[in-house]
């Protein structure tokens, strides 16, 4: 062990000392790195990038579709709300119009009724007046003629004639009012 010769002999077969295999290994590994770096790793990197891009693009499309759907929904809701408002407005209008029509009709009916009543009253008054006038004319002559025939006395005197008629009418009035009441 201590002699130089015995030191040299183990060195040649010492597994810590490299031999010609070193160069073969160096070449083999360098070749493998070259082949992998040229033919395998770039396409894999490209594929990863492409997939990430595709996923990113899909996410973008998803976001777009989502925002589209949201805006459509918002529009839909706005339209629904508008329609509700419109319906409420129309209902309110109809109610107001109905009320106006009813009140107008009521008013018209009342005026018409009042007018008819008024007309009837005036008609009655006119009839009564006409009746009174005709009575005044006819009853006087009739009565005087009748009375003249009965009493045989000519009642030619105008003044007395009208006085008699007035008294008669007053009596008639009194009797008619007491009979009516």
């Amino acid at each position: 062990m201590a002699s130089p010769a015995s030191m040299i002999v183990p060195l040649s077969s010492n597994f810590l000392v490299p031999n010609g295999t070193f160069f073969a290994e160096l070449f083999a590994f360098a070749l493998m790195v070259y082949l992998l770096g040229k033919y395998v790793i770039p396409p894999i990197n490209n594929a990863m990038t492409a997939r990430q891009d595709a996923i990113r693009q899909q996410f973008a499309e998803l976001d777009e579709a989502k925002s589209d759907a949201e805006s459509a929904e918002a529009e839909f809701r706005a339209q629904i709300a508008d329609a509700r408002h419109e319906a409420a407005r129309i209902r309110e209008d109809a109610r107001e119009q109905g009320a106006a029509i009813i009140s107008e009709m009521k008013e018209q009916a009342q005026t018409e009724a009042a007018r008819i009543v008024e007309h009837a009253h005036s008609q009655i008054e006119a009839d009564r007046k006409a009746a009174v006038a005709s009575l005044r004319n006819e009853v006087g002559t009739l009565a005087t003629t009748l009375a003249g025939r009965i009493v045989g006395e000519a009642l030619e005197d105008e003044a007395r004639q009208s006085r008699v008629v007035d008294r008669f009418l007053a009596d008639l009035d009194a009797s008619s009012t007491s009979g009516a009441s």
Partner: protein
Amino acid sequence: MSAMIAGAVPLSGDITIGDHVVRKIGGLSFNLDTIWATLIAAGLVLLLGLIARRALTKHPDDHVPTKVQLLWETIVAEVNTQVEDNLGKVQPYVAPLAISLFFFILFANWLELLPTEINEKLHLTPAPTADTNLTYALALLVMVSVWTYGIRQKGLKGYLKHFVEPFPVLLPLNVLEELIKPLTLALRLFGNIFAGGIMLSLIGLIPFYASWAPNLLWKLFDMAIGGIQAFIFALLVVLYFGMAGAGHEEHEEHDSTEKDPELAH
């Protein structure tokens, strides 16, 4: 451990460690078993990569990834994140290097778990990472790349300046650190996987009717170790790149703040 096992079970033979199928070509020795195992591991990684690529090019508009593609994408995305966190952006060289390192080391580590031992002397698929030749080669490639990256980011002067920062007296330590980085990278990986191989050899000495349980347990554990070592190696590589380029961003920011007043004029 071996003494305990030796006491418990009859040993059929001695364990030989660090033995390889060696062929001398032109004065250089080549460990053929390491080389073919490396080719198998690298071939599997490339095959998986090409399967993922074929699925990608067949349906370029179909964004649903296949299972193999998912496997790749998980690692690629993770490494890209790490690179971006440490280097500021995804470097077109660093990320593929780290991804290749991870997959290759993972497959190389797991090769050992295939039950392809012809006898105690010959394992058809030994972990190539249990040979320092591979780990030294990986570490050398990585560190040369790291140094190149650092010089390209900061310029030769700027890169060399970081050896005397924060204090010039730390120069030897800083130089030592740069030299230790590849050694630790290589030997950490080698040691872990090499030890796993020794454990498998030891378990192989147990008669088959009793060895299945420790074999199963250890292989499961070894799978975890293989994954962790691949992850650590790739992560450290990214961190080393980040350290080599560190300080550059601050320099750039300083520049931009200087430029701003000029732009304002």
